[in-house]
């Protein structure tokens, strides 16, 4: 089973994504900020990260830069932003994101892209 880490300070958003991902039989873990996410990521391997931008302590960019700076196997990361941050896409890619989506992401769309990144064969 593929493991996905949701990194977001908003519990509502975490729950929203968790519900989507769990219905599709992914194993989900959560982190409330970049620091917590990094700790979890270094402890256990994840197959994918879903990362918010604005977070206390360490934001999404900071988390990705640190994560990508590790000499470890690297799993893809989706950065999820709100529409207000239109120009952040390049920053996201520069920090190490592999996809940039705008909140709220439609469940079926998110799942399609998650499956694509994870290499799960599409039906």
């Amino acid at each position, binding site marked *: 089973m593929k493991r996905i880490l949701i990194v977001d300070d908003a519990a509502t958003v975490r729950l929203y994504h968790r519900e989507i991902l769990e219905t599709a039989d992914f194993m989900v873990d959560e982190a409330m900020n970049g620091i917590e996410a990094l700790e979890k990521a270094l402890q256990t391997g994840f197959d994918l990260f879903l990362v918010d931008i604005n977070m206390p302590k360490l934001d999404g960019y900071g988390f990705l830069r640190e994560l990508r700076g590790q000499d470890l196997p690297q799993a*893809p990361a989706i950065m999820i932003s709100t529409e207000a941050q239109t120009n952040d896409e390049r920053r996201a890619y520069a920090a190490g994101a592999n996809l940039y989506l705008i909140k709220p992401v439609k469940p079926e769309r998110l799942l399609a892209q998650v499956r694509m990144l994870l290499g799960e064969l599409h039906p």
Partner: protein
Amino acid sequence: MSPLLEQFLSEARDFLQGIGEKLMQLEAAPADADLMNELFRLVHTLKGNSGLFDAPEMTRVLHAGEDLMDAVRNGRVAYSRPLADRLLDAMDFVGMLCDELESDGQLGAAHAGDSVRLVDALRHLLQPDDAPAEAPAPESTPESAPAPTASLAEPTPVADTASLPLASIPEAVRMQAYRRACAGEPLSWLAYRPHEQCFYQGDDPFFLARQTPELLWSRIEAREPWPPLAELDAYSCMLDFQLLTAAPRAALEEQYRYVMDQVQTTEVPRLALVMPQGDPNGGPVYDDFAADARRLLQTGDLEGLARNASTLLELSSPDLWIASALRWLQLVLETEPENKAILDALVDCLGSLAAPQWGTAGAAETHTASASTSIRQDPAPRNERGQEAEGVADASDEATPALSPLAADALAAVVAAQGEVLALTDEPRWLPGRLKAAAAALSGCLRATGATAKLQDLEAATAAALARNSGAPLLTWIAAVFPAELVGEPGAAAPVTAAPPSPAHSAPQPPEAEGEIKFGRRAEDAISGPKSLKVDQAKIDRLMNLIGEMVVAKNALPYLAGRAEAVFGVRELAREIKGHYGVINRIAEEMQGAIMQIRMMPVSFVFQRFPRLVRDISRKLGKEVELILEGEDTEADKTIIESLGDPLMHIVRNSLDHGIESPELRRAAGKPATGTLRLRAMQESDRVVIEISDDGKGIDPDIIKRKAYAKGLIDETLLEQISDQEAVNLVFAAGFSTTEVISDLSGRGVGMDVVRTAVEKVNGSVALTSQQGRGTQIRLSLPLSMAVTNVMIVVSDGQRFGVPMDRVVETVRVPRAAIRTIKHSLATVLRGRIVPLKSINDLLGLSAPPKANADDELAVLVVRLGDESLGLLVDDFSETLDIILKPMTGVLAGLPAYAGSALMGDGSVLMVLNVKEIL
């Protein structure tokens, strides 16, 4: 309610609370950048959350609030009190929507108007004072700071409008528009993309579009190909409206004011309309005409030019491109013959048969056409993206017979995004990780589409990329495996609106020194996981009930021990039972304490609403008040804390209304213009004490006395005798209100008796001291916890009753002879004081007379009632007990004589008297 909504509402309330607090704090420290950022983050996150639900009104208002906060934290707009007012209003509105979501599970359409007004009010603040009023605020974050308006200002107007489908407007309409533009009317292209859910809000976008003033041309487009009828949702708006209008911007804003977020307008320079169209072939030879025309133009013979054009036009088929160009030439000759640049360009294009390039020819004209102003940048139309996605699917056909449209879309998006990532030319220290992650994403694409045969190539390319520390080898690989145009057009699949420059030409990403976070330092910060746990109150209540039952069950053990000895004669066993009872008793007590600890809440829970309240009210009253909160972390039981809310609110309002004077009066009295209101909480042994003090005008005891007399609360004798201190406490008497004029705020004709009643309901007391001219102090004293009540058991007419110990003064046995009848009432003298006596049997409607003991003494339970003492005649006293008082429920709740009931160790039920009520 779904758990998601529940979670949202609970979190939203926390956010709203936090936003309110931060705004208050900002008033004191308007330059605090951290505070500002935190505030922005709260609003931003809340907005994001609200977007998950069908609550467009909420999202819209929060979005505007977010933009405003963003402008404030970037210094584009200064923080001000009116700004805080607006934001607070907006948050109140959001709070109200939360309430409605909670009760109804959805939002009614009724709030759309309010939300728009709030958004307008917020957006209004966004306009810098020196900017023209019609410039709408850019909806963007600081990072994007050359906002769309600014970045669009550079290219020529024609380049701006080049993306508009102006060519689809019939020539006649364009010519008409051109004439009107020449007459000085502004031309705008307006794209209106209504929200999908707008029908549910009662919107009729078609009607709105039809009513557009000065409409020149319009069209409707479906956003996506229509699904089969069986799958069509008629109530999900799939229509886009596009139109050309000559209405001034202000009129358009007025017309579309409720849907401004769904509308994008672009100013159309008239030259953008000059677009010859038609069949490029055939017709007479035009070279001669072009040469003649140029000569005529140079000599200034415009009439000759017009004649020539007219003749040639008659000779040409009207469908020809050249005919169209001639018609435009005629039009320009007619409307603005003085504009040589345009005529030149048109004549040139007649020779070259190429569309005129207004970018250079019309350069002189650009002043008339300002940069287009994008109210909202819409993502690329979905159908286009769909097509590109199909292209990808086709390209990988050999590997996968069929990809679902969603999967194809995902594939396009992922590949395009990796193209962007790999094309970045910066070299941060995390570049190897970034390359690996991109390779992992691409590997996902291969595996997801079944093209696993290509995995080996990918690995090789990845290794090369890592070796060279560059994305180039992987880019080459992408170009080979996926269609090239896809990589070159990442914007097609990316959801971002502002089309990023093609990666190939983009400047190297500047090193993000400012944004880079040194993790090493951050790591030293304490990492705080979730420290608190949100638990439904019902669960705590259940724990309380369980521990109550446990205490009762535990209390049965001494009975058991008694029976073991008395009935079965096994003293050893009885002793062991008692020993175990001691252990269980200790555990139960600790457990009870622990559970009560869970119910303890800090008084900040009630204090926190006062900064806002005091601020709002004092401003309304034109007073200046500083609120000081102290001891906010003092804790008490939840019930107690919650019961504090209303009395405190009332006292504070009274103080603001009647206590603290206006600044002028205060200055006249030699006091600082700003009044001080202090809320102070502290724990005193097993009570929590709240003091509310102000430095206002205090209470005039004479006025109170006169008023109490006038209202019949005191008689003439008392009027003479009563001390000033006693007089001011008369404000607590029922039916007393100090206000002559019922004010908007606190008056309402109820006095401080409401406060007293509320406080007494939780076994609290209230006292007031006041010094005229110096201020008033009110002191509330409340028990820390209500959970355990110590009661004295009394017996009367064979029944056992509980009397709360805090009411009991003493128990005495009075000889029957010492009981007198004074004015039909019984009384006795205890230590020189007359104590009225009442028979509990009479009070409870029991017919039996009080029983005396063998010495003909009657048992009198002396209870306290306010400042008075009163004797209750009972048959006998029994032990005192700690009980868990359960309030009366159901029909019994209507019996005011009882404060509640408790289960006893032997399984019987003890009724606890409400002494105040039975007297």
